[in-house]
């Protein structure tokens, strides 16, 4: 019996010839991640175990990205606590201040996560790294603490669902739209406890940025992980970032691997998607949105704050101005992206469009700071969650979309498409 890519990676890390779904395994982990919100709890738990040093100072990665730059005294204290631990343990990978980017954009960019790795992170969007062909999943702070002690964790091997995208991508349709469409179709618990494996002829046309967006939102369907079998696009990306690319273990799924389900979508029918409040599954095609006025547009986050996303936004915004009623906030996800965007002249376009450019941070994505919504306000955003109160007041509203739609909506003052403001597709 063949195995899926997920099963192969887990078997290898459990030191077993094979694994099957439902099996409980003890697995070694390659990267153990936490951020400024989840690391303090993990560190407290780690200390409570009486252990003095972490299993491996190269494996434990801490990123102070959520409430950074410190939004208030309490979050400053939390960051200090994390910083002191990072220095005490001499962690190779600790990022704050000007080196800090949103964790799930930063780690691949720095080549910290590699294909074939097992990654756990005290952040639910740890599943993002599946785009590299790694098994990556979110856990809690205590799981991270235990792994910091042992270098291992336990998993129940997940069943895999295969999502096959065939056909031709329509104008302005991106990775964001494919994953929003999928979540709309299967629901926020449609892949509960499972691994979502994304495949099909469309994949080869998707950039790494698109792929990261897709696997990023696997958790929004309740999945344990999302994964894409590495191909030429993956290898080109990795080649650039990793010092010893020839040592990477690339895994793929066997043709006779067992899936709990195979779901096929013809992308010919898929338009840009908008998820209405208050759930990522409330998706509608852009042509059926109607008139939804907005007060804010946000382009950023671990979902869509990459350079490709900013380039698309700039393409839409070039020579345009945001509607007077709208705050447009653009958040490059990492310092490298920030610098590239600046060099490419994107900031000029953004500023001429009267956008606000934020330093890299999670910021408004989780209602932290830098763009909190007032009661009754409405935002369109490229982030991944539109739960009640996610971006501010419990009576505000969040709509999820791709960067092109968010940018066009900022100009229109209501949710709409780039076509409506006469922009030709970016290529």
């Amino acid at each position, binding site marked *: 019996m063949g195995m899926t890519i997920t099963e192969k990676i887990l078997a290898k890390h459990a030191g077993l010839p094979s694994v099957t779904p439902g099996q*409980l395994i003890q697995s070694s982990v390659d990267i153990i991640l936490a951020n400024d919100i989840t690391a*303090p709890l993990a560190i407290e738990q780690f200390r409570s*175990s009486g252990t003095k040093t972490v299993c491996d100072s190269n494996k434990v990665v801490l990123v102070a990205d*959520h409430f950074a730059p410190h939004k208030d005294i309490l979050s400053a204290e939390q960051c200090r606590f994390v910083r002191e631990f990072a220095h005490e343990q001499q962690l190779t990978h600790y990022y704050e201040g000007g080196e800090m980017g949103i964790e799930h954009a930063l780690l691949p960019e720095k080549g910290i996560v590699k294909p074939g790795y097992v990654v756990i992170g005290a952040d639910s969007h740890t599943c993002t790294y599946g785009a590299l062909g790694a098994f990556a999943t979110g856990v*809690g702070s205590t799981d991270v603490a235990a792994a910091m002690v042992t270098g291992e964790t336990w998993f129940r091997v997940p069943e895999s669902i295969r999502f096959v995208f065939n056909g031709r991508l329509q104008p302005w349709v991106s990775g964001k739209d494919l994953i929003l469409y999928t979540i709309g179709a299967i629901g926020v618990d449609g892949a*509960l406890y499972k691994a979502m494996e994304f495949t099909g002829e469309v994949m080869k046309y998707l950039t790494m940025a698109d792929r990261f967006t897709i696997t990023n939102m696997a958790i929004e369907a*309740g999945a344990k992980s999302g994964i894409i079998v590495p191909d030429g696009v993956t290898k080109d990306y990795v080649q650039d970032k990793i010092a010893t690319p020839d040592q990477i273990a690339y895994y793929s799924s066997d043709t006779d691997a067992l899936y709990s389900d195979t779901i096929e979508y013809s992308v010919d029918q898929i338009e840009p998607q908008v998820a209405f409040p208050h759930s990522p599954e409330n998706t509608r095609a852009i042509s059926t949105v109607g008139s939804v006025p907005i007060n804010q547009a946000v382009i950023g986050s671990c979902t869509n704050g990459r350079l490709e996303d900013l380039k698309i936004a700039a393409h839409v915004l070039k020579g345009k101005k945001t509607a007077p009623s709208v705050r447009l906030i653009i958040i490059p996800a990492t310092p490298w992206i920030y610098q590239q965007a600046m060099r490419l002249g994107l900031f000029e376009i953004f500023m001429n469009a009267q956008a606000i450019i934020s330093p890299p941070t999670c910021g408004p994505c989780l209602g932290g700071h830098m763009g909190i919504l007032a009661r009754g306000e409405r935002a369109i955003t490229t982030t991944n969650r539109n739960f*009640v109160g996610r971006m501010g007041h*419990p009576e505000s509203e969040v709509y999820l979309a791709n960067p092109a739609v968010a940018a066009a909506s900022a100009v229109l003052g209501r949710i709409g498409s780039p076509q409506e403001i006469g922009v030709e597709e970016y290529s």
Partner: protein
Amino acid sequence: MRGKCWKYGPDINTDLIIPARYLNTTDPQELAKHCMEDVDQTFPVKVGKGDIIVADKNFGCGSSREHAPIAIKASGVSCVIAKSFARIFYRNAFNVGLLVIVCPEAFQDIAEGDEVEVTAETGIIANITQGKSYTADPIPPFMQEILNHGGLMEYVAAKQSNPKGA
């Protein structure tokens, strides 16, 4: 474990359980003050020691914040019974010592305000008010082992000192 039930709908996410605006602290009592407030503003005030949350499918979906089960536990809740749980929340609950039980039948049947008694070992949920009882899905043996050790860190510590025995 015995208490009064508070009933909620499907997909209660971790942003509802403890909004991110309160995540600049890890103090359980501070977190408990805001537990569930975006779904039910009166919850932190009305919840009593031993009370039980009963919820529809996918309870605890969303972020990985362990602050969510910590806030629920610190607010006095002894147990969460749901039709199903999101996986990170389920795992976190065990790790911090909050009992969570999957029982679709109990969710259907229990009304808000019912007095319910839960016996963790047997998975029997007795509805005192209605004079009925339900049997929950058994807790996976491995999770039971973590509970027996008193939480994940204790389990890990035991294993570290005695790698073969645990």
